């Protein structure tokens, strides 16, 4: 069998998820011996024409040009995997979706030079996606699992349970129950390794909503802890603000 080709694409993002691939220092050279890196602008000047066996897509869609470009990427990709909070939910820049006014004038003196959409949206809102890998940034262990699974033709083993499960497995004291620290762990998808609770901090939801999250119940708990409605809105409206369960929960508390 021919060596599969891999392309890495960037849309509106910080480069952190692509960097996570380069941060697989121990595995990178082994990986690149098993796949042909055919198009990865951040890492290589060499570009091989598509179609590609696998495309990894970082970033969200924020311009009409990118909305067209992602369709071209999809058309030349056998398997398309989105990596990170921007690609899977619209990212932190999706906060613009909730702003009352167009933001261009706040940052740019001459907004007419700036061609941008009013919203930041996930890749899956534009084209069919074969697998979504969460995280801001993605976990390198999960990224390697996805790539390994693809190379072996199996389904990636990525848990969709909550951060609470990782916390329990790590033997951490629950920051919400024991310290009254507001934590999004009960509604956030696992994958980071319960990083925030491990430093005595509440989870801030950067892996986005878990499967079937009970956001209403968690909001009630936060309000009991003395967090104001606007604090609940800001918590859900952050790194994965446009992901449906978080977006809807924030809306319930907005301007109450």
């Amino acid at each position, binding site marked *: 069998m021919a060596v599969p080709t891999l392309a890495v694409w*960037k*849309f*509106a*993002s*910080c*480069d*952190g*998820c*692509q*960097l*996570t691939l*380069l*941060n697989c*220092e*121990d595995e*990178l*050279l082994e990986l*690149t011996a098993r796949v042909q*890196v055919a198009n*990865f*602008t*951040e*890492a*290589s*000047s*060499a*570009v091989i024409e598509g179609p590609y066996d696998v495309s990894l897509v970082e970033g969200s869609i*924020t*311009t009409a040009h*990118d909305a067209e470009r992602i369709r071209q990427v999809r058309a030349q990709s056998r398997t398309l995997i989105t990596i990170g909070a921007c690609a899977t939910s619209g*990212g*932190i*820049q999706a*906060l*613009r979706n909730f*702003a009352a006014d167009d*933001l*261009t004038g*706040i*940052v*740019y*003196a*001459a907004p007419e*030079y*700036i061609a*941008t959409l009013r919203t*930041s949206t996930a890749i899956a809102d534009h084209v069919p996606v074969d697998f979504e890998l969460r995280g*801001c*940034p993605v976990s390198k262990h999960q990224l390697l699992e996805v790539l390994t699974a693809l190379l072996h033709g199996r389904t990636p083993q990525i848990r969709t349970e909550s951060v609470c499960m990782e916390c329990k497995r790590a033997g951490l004291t629950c920051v919400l129950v024991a310290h009254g620290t507001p934590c999004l762990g009960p509604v956030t998808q696992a994958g*980071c390794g319960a*990083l*925030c609770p491990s*430093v*005595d*901090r509440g989870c*801030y939801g*950067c892996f986005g909503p878990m499967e079937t999250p009970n956001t209403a119940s968690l909001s009630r708990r936060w309000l009991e802890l003395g967090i104001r409605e606007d604090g609940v809105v*800001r918590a859900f409206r*952050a*790194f994965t603000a446009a992901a449906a369960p978080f977006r809807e929960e924030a809306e319930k508390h907005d301007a109450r």
Partner: protein
Amino acid sequence: MTHGSRVRVGALSRVEGEGGLELVTENGMVTEARLDIYEPPRFFEALLRGRQYTEPPDITARICGICPVAYQMSACAAIEDACQVTVPEPIAALRRLLYCGEWIESHALHIYLLHAPDFLGFASGIEMARSYPGVVRRGLRIKKAGNELMTAVGGRSVHPVNVRVGGFYRAPSSGSLRALVPELTWARSAAIETVRWVSGFDFPVFERKYTFAALRHPSVYPITDGSLVTSTGLCLEPRDYDEHFTEFQVPHSTALHSVLDSGVTYLTGPMARFALNRDRLPGWMTGLACLDGPGPARLDGPARPDGPARPDGVCRNPFASIVVRAVELLYACDEALRLISAYLPPDPPYVPVPAPADQACGYGWSEAPRGLLYHRYLINPDGSVADAKITPPTSQNQRAIESDLRDFASSRLLLSEHELGHECERLVRSFDPCISCATHFLDLRVRPHD
């Protein structure tokens, strides 16, 4: 190059972000060189309005996955300034240690995976690894040491979770940091090898008269703080920045340009830091690169007139900035080891930072791997952010890059389009531009004057 033809010469790769180059020629001269930045804007300054003053460190980290700590540190400095809080020395030292991790990670990435392939004729670090596996593995291992330091202090290397306004959520244990010493000691030796290795590269002859701007600290090489000094003699505190530096918009870029007093183009980053602070480095480090005067021959051979060695010890050739970056990589490893050996966990790990009683403006900066990163926040008494300004290094460097491109390309118009494109791309890459920061990616077009 065919005179007067309009040409597209591929894409600039191995930079963080999306942009393009355009050269305008007239009568065999380059009349205009533009760095077109078409990275989609993400509006961070606007998104911060109405957020709580405790949030910018986590939110602005997302501007750049390569240098999130720089954003976190400049944000903390500005917010603490607005709230009139100064963190105790042990917290400041732990911040510097985390920042050393980012310098190691970022500089190793640029030197080994993005920049060195240009000098050795490869399209990527991955391709270079087939011919030089040991060298690339060394680079990756240094980079990993930086990432592990960031993980030990910050919780993870991309977008650390442990940083808060006032300090850290939890101080790492002495043991967890001491565990890093063997690998950082190895990285320090490997960084010495790196300086020797890159000092031997062939650099195109291209000396520039830069106006440099960098932080300067009373006793150490600047990373987290200092006064801003320039080669024109300015010495500024953060609150003076807006008075002397002006940002403005140009049609061809989603990143704002920046100039110093009365329109002076300036350069920030490793070359500027080194030019203005090389006396803060141990002599043996600067001597290694043979950048410190005519002294001994380069370790790998005799100094060449077109190499990085300069009588005043200042590097003004952007191509040779890889040597400066390697010296800074070495310094960051050395400094991390020093900070770890002196480390006592700050207790408590953070100081309380109450919101200001009246609306207050705070100013902060630090030396990101790519240069000066300035933040300013106006904070309301309810803790909400009323206004934010962020000036990243690449946006400040755009004009210097364009000026260099113009002069560099002017003397090379006889090259083929392909060669000229390749050479210009190399020049831009020398600056380690982070277009994600400034807003990302480059494709070169040469067109005749309309």
